[in-house]
């Protein structure tokens, strides 16, 4: 969320204006508040969408009563109804775990939003290992499901929980491997970097999905696996109502029941968002001229933000409106791509019949894992072959190494930044006055107390 | 130095130097993959998988033998993670020879059927790779990794007969104790690595020396050294708990009889020899690394304490093993306790070495090398006699479907080949004069005598060892008594053993036991090699 707040990060911004200690706490609180409120909204919309789409697919209208013609308030109405319901805990249940389980599932699903970037730089935690961490946190959702299944004290729930455990543990493997396929192509785990590298030259050529045949297939494998990972149909064995009543959530009611679904829809959005970052260009539109212009603007914005006062050695915090707008546009593009994929998941659910549990396991262990391994191997070997070929031939001009392209764009941004600096320097000579008004932050405030021994030799 | 240069250097180091010296392990890795592929393309219907395993093991053995022949100076492989020296090569050769023999045994006794063969041999080879890492470890991470790579497949192998109650119980006990001790050991490693700021064992030696030498740093030395020393001692105690578990030394021996009784005899034989040999090699390396080479006043004390401590443990272990073996009715359990006792004898050699190596006795280094030589010789003879005993148990089990000593009644007359083999093996295990076991024990006792000049306590250990030898005669004789003196009960079917292949195998394994005892040439040759290896390690050190 950095560029939103005219500072390198919200924490810095607040640390400037309040105090370092409370600034960080406030920043954490505000981040959490924004994330939860924005993304509690997403499941609501998707639940409405699911009802609408399923209605259309079954030749019905779907919800129409609440909120005008499209029934767009239906999700909210559902929520209101569920909150009013009685919160039941069966006598046979282990009440502590039973109450705890929905929260675990929810925290895991919503926690991933910390790491999901929405546009260049608009991310709560810009971690270098973003993808890895995101997949790791997402994998915790299964714990909530299993505990729910086990603590309900009902055999249907137990079966649902066991199926979920077996299914998730198996599907995590191809999920991780197919997510690695684009990683070996771009050489970074940082989600922002991965998306930025997919700036196209002409049309769609930057998207990793079209980078080589292996990433192309990997996208479909990833999407299949991710669908299974969110226990969506046709892989929704954990809650197969025709066999297991309701599976792991048989005994749940009211708000706790709805938590599971909030988590499920949030996870759907996360895996779809991840798919669009890893394969579909993230916030890039795919039109070369638009993407490149936007990318240059964003880099320029980053440069403005990172500018350092030569006198004090502190960060200046320039706000650069074009970059902000570019990011906003990127966010719209990104969210629409992810929503489209969510729509596809819904579509699949209402089209395909559910598999049997043995078929689910066999699909994963016998087909998806070997396929993903082959894809991974192929994607690793491909650049070697292509570079070899591209060096000697002029047939494929667009196999320019991704890094070169990024460097080129960054160079353009740097140049325009430098020009602007010069211009500014020429225009207003009393630079120091302007700078004094700007808040300045100390370098790397988040780095914790100095490590042991640092006062030793220096 | 830029990144590319470093990368090139790394590639040169890895491909040019390390991989060549690592070839026997690589051969085993390739064999594991081969076993998988054979099953993948259903080739195992026509080609029994043991051929693949046997071929791979023999190839690895050949590669190791080439390395042995080449000799060469001590060097560090893989940026210092492994040490490549005569000592390590010898133990690799030892382990691979044993691996070949065990695979041959399983082929003859048929314990993994053709369907389970790939699984069994994969585990066997995997465990052997772990042991080979153990014997050449020069880094605490590799030490832990080697022990884990050895242990985890062993757990499965102990429970290999998965339908049997006993087998699953044995595996469960083994895995629970083993995993627990591994955790404890890891905690010790973490403390030691943190204290000394490195995981590299050659650096550990240096820094231990710094830690122990009084002139290291001026101010309030006693306080600093004391706290640091206590941490290191605690850490090394925790680490040695892990090694002691692998060696089944006394406070950590409890898994051994249970695991051996529940496991198939072939697996028990494998564990009793190979994992002990690897653990001894590791123990020797670790002990030598712990204290550093230069003899300061303080480090000499540490050596002495360490040696005497090991001596105490050795004496207790040998005594306990022999006493507990006395009342056993199951042959595998008896052999398990005998394994514990033998671990005690061999530990005496390590204790003597530690006492001697930095002492002021004349020719201390040479005598320390002598103790190590005794250990190596003992291990070599032990390989044959123990494997022989377990092999005979496996062959008899295939016929009479029992491992109780009382069911062995009269078998010696009905199957003369196995009976005589058993006599040789057991007498050698006791340490009777004309067999290899006698010379082995003699060498260890001799170094104990030497060590006694440095610290008279070692003479006490010697006395206990001698008493134990006499005492152990009783329970070994009980087995022979059952086989030869007690008549076969009326009505029990006559047992028929074919000479080929089981008998031939027994002859092949027991022959070295005889040769090392009867003919002076073989012990000389063997002890030459052993002393060369031992001298190399001690002098390098």
């Amino acid at each position, binding site marked *: 969320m950095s560029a939103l707040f005219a500072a390198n990060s919200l924490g810095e911004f607040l640390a400037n204006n309040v105090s370092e200690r409370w600034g960080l706490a406030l920043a954490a609180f505000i981040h959490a508040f924004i994330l939860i409120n924005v993304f509690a909204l997403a499941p609501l919309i998707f639940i409405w969408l699911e009802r609408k789409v399923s209605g259309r697919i079954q030749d019905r209208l779907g919800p129409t009563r609440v909120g005008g013609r499209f029934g767009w308030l239906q999700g909210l109405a559902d929520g209101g109804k569920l909150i009013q319901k009685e919160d039941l805990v069966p006598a046979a249940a282990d009440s502590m775990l039973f109450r705890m389980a929905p929260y675990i599932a929810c925290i895991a699903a919503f926690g991933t939003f910390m790491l999901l970037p929405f546009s260049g730089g608009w991310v709560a935690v810009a971690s270098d290992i973003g993808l890895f961490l995101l997949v790791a946190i997402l994998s915790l959702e299964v714990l909530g499901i299993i505990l729910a299944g086990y603590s309900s004290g009902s055999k249907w729930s137990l079966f649902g929980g066991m199926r979920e455990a077996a299914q998730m543990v198996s599907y995590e493997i191809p999920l991780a491997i197919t997510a690695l396929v684009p990683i070996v192509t771009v050489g970074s785990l940082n989600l922002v970097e991965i998306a930025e590298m997919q700036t196209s030259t002409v049309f769609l050529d930057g998207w990793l999905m079209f980078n080589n045949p292996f990433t192309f297939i990997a996208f479909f494998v990833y999407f299949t696996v991710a669908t299974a990972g969110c226990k969506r149909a046709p892989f929704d064995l954990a809650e197969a109502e025709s066999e297991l009543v309701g599976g792991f959530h048989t005994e749940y009611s009211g708000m706790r029941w709805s938590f599971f679904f909030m988590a499920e829809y949030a996870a759907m959005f996360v895996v779809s968002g991840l798919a669009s970052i890893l394969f579909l260009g993230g916030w890039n539109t795919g039109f070369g001229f638009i993407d490149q212009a936007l990318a240059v603007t964003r880099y320029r914005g980053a440069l403005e933000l990172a500018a350092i006062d030569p006198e004090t050695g502190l960060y200046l915090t320039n706000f650069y409106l074009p970059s902000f707008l570019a990011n906003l546009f990127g966010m719209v593009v990104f969210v629409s791509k992810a929503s489209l994929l969510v729509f596809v998941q819904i579509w699949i659910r209402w089209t395909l019949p559910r598999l049997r549990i043995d078929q689910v396991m066999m699909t994963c262990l016998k087909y998806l894992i070997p396929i993903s391994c082959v894809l991974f191997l192929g994607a690793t070997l491909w650049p070697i072959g292509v570079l070899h070929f591209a060096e000697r031939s002029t047939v494929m001009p667009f196999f320019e190494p991704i890094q070169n392209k990024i460097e080129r764009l960054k160079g353009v941004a740097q140049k325009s930044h430098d020009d602007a600096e010069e211009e500014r320097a020429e225009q207003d000579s009393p630079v120091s006055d302007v700078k004094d008004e700007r808040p300045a932050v100390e370098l790397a405030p988040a780095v914790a107390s100095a490590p042991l021994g640092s006062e030793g030799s220096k | 130095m*830029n990144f590319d240069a470093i990368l090139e250097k790394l590639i040169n180091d890895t491909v040019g130097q390390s991989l060549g010296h690592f070839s026997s392990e690589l051969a085993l890795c390739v064999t594991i993959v081969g076993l998988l592929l054979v099953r993948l393309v259903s080739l195992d219907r026509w080609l029994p998988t043991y051929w693949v395993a046997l071929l791979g093991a023999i190839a690895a053995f050949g590669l190791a033998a080439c390395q042995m022949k080449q000799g060469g100076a001590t060097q560090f492989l893989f940026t210092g993670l492994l040490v490549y020296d005569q000592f390590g090569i010898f133990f690799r050769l030892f382990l691979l020879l044993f691996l070949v023999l065990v695979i041959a045994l399983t082929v003859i006794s048929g314990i993994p059927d053709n369907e389970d063969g790939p699984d069994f041999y994969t585990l066997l080879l995997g465990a052997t790779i772990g042991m080979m890492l153990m014997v050449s470890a020069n880094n605490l991470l590799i030490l832990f990794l080697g022990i884990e790579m050895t242990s985890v497949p062993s757990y499965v192998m102990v429970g290999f007969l998965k339908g049997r109650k006993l087998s699953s119980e044995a595996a469960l006990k083994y895995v629970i104790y083993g995993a627990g001790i591994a955790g404890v050991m890891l905690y010790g490693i973490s403390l030691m690595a943190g204290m000394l700021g490195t995981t590299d064992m050659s650096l550990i030696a240096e820094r231990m020396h710094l830690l122990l030498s009084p002139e290291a740093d001026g101010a309030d030395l006693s306080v600093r050294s004391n706290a640091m020393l206590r941490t290191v001692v605690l850490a090394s105690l925790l680490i040695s708990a892990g090694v002691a578990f692998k060696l089944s030394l006394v406070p950590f021996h409890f898994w051994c009889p249970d695991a051996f009784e529940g496991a198939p005899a072939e697996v028990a034989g494998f564990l009793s020899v190979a994992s002990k040999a690897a653990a001894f090699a590791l123990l020797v390396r670790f002990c030598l690394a712990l204290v550093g080479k230069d003899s300061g006043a303080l480090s000499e004390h540490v050596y002495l304490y360490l040696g005497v401590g090991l001596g105490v443990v050795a004496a207790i272990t040998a005594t306990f093993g022999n006493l507990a073996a006395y009342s056993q009715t199951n042959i595998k359990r008896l052999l398990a306790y005998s394994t514990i006792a033998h671990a005690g004898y061999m530990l005496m050699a390590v204790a003597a070495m530690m006492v001697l190596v930095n002492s002021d006795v004349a020719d201390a280094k040479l005598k320390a090398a002598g103790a190590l030589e005794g250990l190596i010789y003992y291990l070599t003879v032990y390989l044959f006699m123990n494997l022989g005993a377990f092999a005979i148990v496996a062959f008899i089990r295939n016929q009479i479907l029992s491992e109780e000593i009382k069911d062995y009644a009269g078998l010696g007359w009905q199957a003369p080949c196995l009976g005589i083999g058993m006599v040789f093996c057991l007498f050698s295990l006791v340490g009777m004069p004309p067999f290899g076991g006698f010379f082995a024990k003699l060498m260890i006792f001799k170094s104990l005598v030497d060590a006694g000049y440095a610290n008279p306590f070692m003479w006490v250990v010697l006395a206990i060892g001698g008493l134990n030898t006499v005492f152990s005669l009783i329970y070994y004789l009980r087995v022979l008594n059952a086989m030869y003196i007690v008549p076969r009960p009326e009505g029990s079917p006559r047992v028929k053993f074919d000479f080929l292949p089981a008998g031939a195998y027994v002859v092949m394994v027991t022959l070295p036991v005889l040769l090392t005892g009867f003919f002076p040439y073989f012990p000389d040759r063997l002890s030459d090699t052993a002393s060369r290896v031992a001298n190399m390690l001690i002098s390098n050190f």
Partner: protein
Amino acid sequence: MTGEQFLFWLLALTTCGGAIAVVVSQNVVRMAFWLVVALGSVAAIYFLLHADFVGATQLMIYVGGTIVLLIFGVMLTASGPYVKIKTSPGDMVIASGVGVLVLFLLIGTVTAVDWKQAHRSLVGNEHAEYPPAPAAGYNKSNPSSGNTARPIGLKLLGVSLEDTDPTRKDAQNLSAGYLLPFEIVSVHLLVVLIGAGYLARAKRRVPVGADAVVETLAAPVPVQVGVYAGFWRRAAAMLIDGIVISAVQVPAALLMGPLTEPPSNAFVCVSSLLIFLYLAGMESSAYQGTIGKIIMRIAVTDTYGQPVSFLRAAARTLSRYLSGFCLLFGYFMALFTKRKQTLHDLVAGTLVVRRK
């Protein structure tokens, strides 16, 4: 209290509390839950210690993998809804007594050490600062900011970032690299996987007697369309086609310019189009195959044995690229698919059969 202190005490509380709850609780599922709490907090502690990569690994493998496995085991071995195999109170008291003693011993020993001084005297000053003090500006690869993925990756190769620093003099020697354990652990994991799989699975059953009959009956009867062309015959046909095509292409290329220079884009496009037309056209023609196929007496048909349309042949030709892309695997599929189909055969729904 700074943020770090607050976080530390919070996490220390949840970690230790979780661990103690694991010991105290008697229900094995609750134990698993508290274990999740404890190990999850350990992951957070790693983040606090600026070891992001280790923290993420902890979350992924430990909390998301190992514990799920454990809970799975609990479910499979549950005799009743809640297994309570109680510890006798006596054991508990003795064990906790000894445990507390050990704890005091450990803490007493460890905290008595002056680590800073210890390392200065043992290791020497030049290495004693870790992680290096943050350089000016935000440095992505600086381990002190928790971004340890790259340094760890390099370290696995045996290159540390300090080595690449040209100002360091002792950079000639490689620091310890962990390439060997990284590779050998994969062998270990393979072995362990096989071992665990062996214990967990039931024995493969060889069908005997009635079972065998049932299995044979259940097997689908293959539809006989013709005699499917074998792999080698098809490979030979491809080779002949290759010769035919290059017999035309090479002289054409020679006309355009010397062979040493890369051909122009236009030439490549035109010749690709011609090759495509040759392949697709011949296969959909009455010959039912290219020249190579005619020579080798094989033909392309659809799955009913009928000649293929141009559209289908075009699809087949295009999907040849697919077969080629996956390292020629698509071609080799003819070796083991039921009707000796390659990947492009499967895509286009065609067969290659022997001519009568």
